[in-house]
């Protein structure tokens, strides 16, 4: 049976009769990526965690403005003198299968998510031990004072220990999958009623949810649609109520339609250029084999001043993005307001810097770029090549799919590269830990610092930032690191990537900067 109500632009598919009252609250949405698993501890990626946020819950959660608010914990406070954190758990919460939520489940989920086979184990690197105080109180003891711990576990989701044991899924198994790969049992606002990987996933509201529901959805269906043109057509024809993302080039056209709305925002992801800080020689272009000019801070500054970011945003991003001056966007905690200005776009100054550095005629090098990872990434790189040509830097662009890209960066096969970084903790400490500190595999530091940048002051400050409880002192240290990164031009931050979602005009929802789509904030009018 196939009904279509063009008045509300909503399609209802059902094999049998369709309940009339349900019409206004059936919701369908599409995105390019299917969550590859329903196991909240198996894969640490935005499509998985974003989707599962509707089904599972953590001790804390983020509200519409990314602030941390109570979820399964009603309150938390530091214990001892920076020894850790105590969480008081919510009472009367049940999982989807009806079993009660207790501290036992939190301890179990901690052990499951911090196991070495779990992709989420890095979240618990600062944790020494978790111990149950009583049925609804649990302590997390940390190696040192850790002010950001509650915020850093907002995506750590609690699983029922009894359910996991009964279904032999006490550990995540990414390689072979297990019961939790296809089934879910959380405490969240929605429960999974059908799951066909890569095809569709059906969610229905959980009647026993502890919080008051603000949505009016009775059934929600998610379909991955890879082809952007198909997704746009599906939205226009009303086959889906929401798509994420909308291709930037289609956004202006869709805005003119009465039937759909475009919702724009700024994502947490900063797009930047990176350099080889350690390499002895250039690797690509006619000057390959020559000493590496990017070790000279003046050359890096020249690159920063030669790039006209507003022009890139106006043309390639069609005015949908914002300039970035540092490694995090202004929406993140720890953003350094004192360092909000990019180096001025000034071709003459850039040329003068190159002359001073001993390259009056410029040089040639290779720029590596992904072509399917960030919005319009290849076009941005082409623009960078053209802009650098104005100061005599001849970049050879090599754009490739992201599946080939990371291996190239890991092998140090670049003279300059494009990188986007979205801090998982929504805090400025995150990119310092991954992108700026000296790489140190044993301490799990600097794992994305491909260029091998190293600054002893930054290395000194990172542990202090991680353990400082006083917000003012912490911000002062973050400011200092930001100053160093700007002075050294460790990276050239370009812009904060835009978020562009499309909805039918009868849908109201909230777009969060982490690009998570939260179903409980949707209302169908």
């Amino acid at each position: 049976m196939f009904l279509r109500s063009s008045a509300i632009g909503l399609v209802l598919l059902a094999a049998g009769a369709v309940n009339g009252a349900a019409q206004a609250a059936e919701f369908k949405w599409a995105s390019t990526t299917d969550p590859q698993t329903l196991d909240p501890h198996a894969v640490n990626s935005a499509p998985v965690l974003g989707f599962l946020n509707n089904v599972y819950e953590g001790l804390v959660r983020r509200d519409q403005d990314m602030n941390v608010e109570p979820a399964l914990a009603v309150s938390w406070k530091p214990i001892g003198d920076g020894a850790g954190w105590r969480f008081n758990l919510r009472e009367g919460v049940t999982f989807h299968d009806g079993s009660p939520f207790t501290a036992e489940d939190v301890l179990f989920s901690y052990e499951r998510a911090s196991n070495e086979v779990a992709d989420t184990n890095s979240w618990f690197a600062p944790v020494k031990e978790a111990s149950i105080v009583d049925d609804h109180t649990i302590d997390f003891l940390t190696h040192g004072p850790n002010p950001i711990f509650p915020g850093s576990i907002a995506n750590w989701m609690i699983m029922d220990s009894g359910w996991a044991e009964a279904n032999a899924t006490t550990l995540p198994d990414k390689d072979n999958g297990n019961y939790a790969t296809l089934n879910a049992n959380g405490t969240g606002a929605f429960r999974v009623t059908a799951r066909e990987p890569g095809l569709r996933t059906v969610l229905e509201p959980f009647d026993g949810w502890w919080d008051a529901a603000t949505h009016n959805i009775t059934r929600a269906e998610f379909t991955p649609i890879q082809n952007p043109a198909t997704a746009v057509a599906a939205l226009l024809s009303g086959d889906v109520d929401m798509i994420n993302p909308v291709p930037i080039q289609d956004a202006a056209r869709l805005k003119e339609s009465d039937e759909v709305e475009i919702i724009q925002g700024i994502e947490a992801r900063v797009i930047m250029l990176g350099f080889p800080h350690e390499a002895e020689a250039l690797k690509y272009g006619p000057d390959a084999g020559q000493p590496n000019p990017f070790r000279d801070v003046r050359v890096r500054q020249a690159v920063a001043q030669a790039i006209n970011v507003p022009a890139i945003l106006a043309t390639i991003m069609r005015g949908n993005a914002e300039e970035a001056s540092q490694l995090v966007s202004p929406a993140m905690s720890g953003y350094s307001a004192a360092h909000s200005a990019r180096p001025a776009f000034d071709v003459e100054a850039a040329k003068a810097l190159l002359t001073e550095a001993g390259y009056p005629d410029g040089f040639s090098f290779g720029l590596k770029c992904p072509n399917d990872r960030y919005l319009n990434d290849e076009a941005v790189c082409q623009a960078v090549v053209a802009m650098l040509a104005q100061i005599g830097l001849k970049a050879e662009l090599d754009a490739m799919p992201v599946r080939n890209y990371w291996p190239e960066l890991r092998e140090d096969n670049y003279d300059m590269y494009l990188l986007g970084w979205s801090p998982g903790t929504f805090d400025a400490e995150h990119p310092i830990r991954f992108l700026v500190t000296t790489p140190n595999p044993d301490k799990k530091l600097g794992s994305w610092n491909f260029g091998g940048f190293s600054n002893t002051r930054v290395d000194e400050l990172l542990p202090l930032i991680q353990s400082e409880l006083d917000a003012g002192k912490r911000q002062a240290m973050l400011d200092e690191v930001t100053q160093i990164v700007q002075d050294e031009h460790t990276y050239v931050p370009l812009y904060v990537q835009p978020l562009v979602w499309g909805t039918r005009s009868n849908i109201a929802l909230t777009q969060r900067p982490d690009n998570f789509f939260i179903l409980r904030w949707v209302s169908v009018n």
Partner: protein
Amino acid sequence: MLSYILRRVFQSVIVLLVVGLVAFSMFRFVGDPIDNMLGQERTQADIDRLRSDLGLDQPFVVQYAKFLRGAVQGNFGVSYRQGRPVSTIIAERAPATLELAAVSGFLAITLGIGLGVFTAIRRQGFAANAIMTVSLIGVSLPTFLIGILLIYIFSVELDLLPSFGRGETVRIGGWSTGFLTASGLKALILPAITLGLYQMTLIMRLVRSEMLEVLRADYVRFARARGLSDRVVNFRHALKNTLVPVITVTGLQLGSIIAFAIITETVFQWPGVGLLFINAIQFVDIPVMAAYLMLISVMFVSINLIVDLLYYAIDPRLRIDGRTT
């Protein structure tokens, strides 16, 4: 006859082994699955551990041997992306592709032969010329564009048919069918036309030119002189003699309908094996890619074999040649 079949089967197995070897030697150029499987906060140790768990640190010949050992026992491994056995995933997806291919193939053959005969008999007529002109669209426009155009016209503008997906399906045993629901049938229309259009025009043009050839033959003129009706002349004598090349082409095209459903399936988000393959490439899901490529080559090789055997049945001259060689 038997030795001929045995020889052909033996050749087919060699072809399959070579296809597999070439495929495995190419996989490392597709990219590295590791980064897709590990999150942002992975360490070098995680990368090394996963790579050795998956056997990706070994030479491709070793990986291929491991794959073959599993494949002969019906075990194609576990998908990197979904963490489920590849055979289960393919079995889930195959009905969608096979139903789509069956409908498109049926459309292509019936309409192709019908229109081909029509345009050959009425070759001066206005209708025949119009069909011939329109058929140029079918051979010259890329599938991708045809699909998008159809979606735009029938889903976005006219709001008649769904823009993507398969509609509601009904499970019968291990088979999920879209034939039994109204939404399933509606969802089939656009993808089937998109996928079958090229084959249809190809068959139509082939039948037409073969027919024109045959209609000039002496035996057709004699048949007319004997006063046989047009219907008997056109269909019993002329059409039958055009069928040998048509069968060859149709057979091979049937294979490509299944293999090249990839594009149509991507445009319509049709949940078949083609879409699965595209996803596998994006994710560098080597077990799925390997199984898909092997299945497609088994299919092509078998279709070739069947076509060869059909010649045998249709054309008596081949049977004589077969005996002498």
